[in-house]
């Protein structure tokens, strides 16, 4: 597995995503809230050590609902699987805001200021996503010279890809990739982590990815979309 430890300053946080995570949707927070978020990001910069890594494995077969990789069958579901049809190989990845941030977040929680906790949590989620984006950039740069392109990143727990398939994904990676572990419910620790797959191949395309892919009524992203449509 190739592992990278980018500087926090090299992770491009998307403020709009942080505000969205705080419940603002597309609205712009008041100046005092924006200032609060900026100060919190600066504090987090002192304690956050992001990490990402990936392992590229050949695709052995692609079914209607699953992929065979490294001798194991990963049930990716009918929505996600078609995006791997043109893949020669896949990058199995992990990206995390890291243990130090996780411990800091726990300390913050124990201090009991819900506003601090809430904002730090939203920033932490975006750090994990931004680290995953950084990983995609690195992967594209690594495989590009070999004539390969990469697809979108997909994660267990979304679009009908059951979260328990994390166990298969992690079984194909070295133990504790980037220090990330799974519990019995297939949740990761540190909690601000992202894992998943990216298709790699000369014919692979990166397509606009969003909730248009799937209409699951029990997905919170679809709920937010529906709420927005109802309000507009």
């Amino acid at each position: 597995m190739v592992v990278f430890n980018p500087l926090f300053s090299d992770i491009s946080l998307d403020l709009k995503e942080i505000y969205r995570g705080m419940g603002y949707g597309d609205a712009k927070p008041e100046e005092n809230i924006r200032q609060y978020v900026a100060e919190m990001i600066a504090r987090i910069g002192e304690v956050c050590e992001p990490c990402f890594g990936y392992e590229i494995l050949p695709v052995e077969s692609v079914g209607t609902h699953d992929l065979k990789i490294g001798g194991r069958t990963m049930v990716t579901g009918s929505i996600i699987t078609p995006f791997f049809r043109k893949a020669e190989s896949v990058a199995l990845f992990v990206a995390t805001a890291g243990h130090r941030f996780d411990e800091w977040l726990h300390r913050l929680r124990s201090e009991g200021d819900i506003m601090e906790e809430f904002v730090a949590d939203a920033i932490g989620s975006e750090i994990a996503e931004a680290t995953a984006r950084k990983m995609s950039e690195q992967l594209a740069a690594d495989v590009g010279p070999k004539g390969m392109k990469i697809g979108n990143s997909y994660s267990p727990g979304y679009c009908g890809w059951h979260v328990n398939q994390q166990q298969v994904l992690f079984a194909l990676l070295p133990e504790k990739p980037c220090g990330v572990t799974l519990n019995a419910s297939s949740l990761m620790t540190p909690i601000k982590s992202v894992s998943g797959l990216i298709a790699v191949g000369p014919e692979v395309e990166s397509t606009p990815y969003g909730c248009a892919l799937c209409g699951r009524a029990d997905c919170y992203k679809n709920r937010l979309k529906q709420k927005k449509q109802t309000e507009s």
Partner: protein
Amino acid sequence: MTDLHALYEAILGGKLEPAVEVTNQAIAEGIEPQKIINEYMIPAMEEIGARFEAGQAFVPNLLMSARAMKGSLDIVKPLLRGDSTTTVGKVVIGTVKGDLHDIGKNLVASMLEGCGFEVINLGVDVSSDKFIEAVKANNANIICMSALLTTTMNYMKEVIAAVEAAQLKGKVKVMVGGAPLTEGFARSIGADGYSSNANAAVALARNLMES
């Protein structure tokens, strides 16, 4: 003479220090704590809640108001000791077993506390046994459960079964929430109520206390 409208404005605007300052002044002047709560604090929280429901305020506004409210309540609560209105009700809250997501649950806990409930926060990955123990130990009125995953939300049914097995059904109400949940799911598992956000959770908890 203290301008208690400033307390209303401080809570509405989520300003902790002015809220505490005005409350202290009001108490020093001998104003009835119950009057401070009923005529200024609660209306301020109701107003921020209404603005939130109307899309005119956001979660951070709710949180800051709840924080200001709690700061003021902490001052007046000891003066209410012995009064039946000291606490609106006792809530045992937790994220169910297998799930580690706690921010949504903590938002609800904070709002409930800000609105006068006593909250026993059990944290994350909470088993049915822990819920039942906490209800018995605290003589709680409500169990409030949260889950973020479709895989873990089904555990709520086990907790409700444990409530029945412990012969607590009817004595303690069960409310549930979390991103993948729906009203229909809540009904299907036998919960007494469902809420989709922290503000609605407070209204639901109040209703459950009255039912």
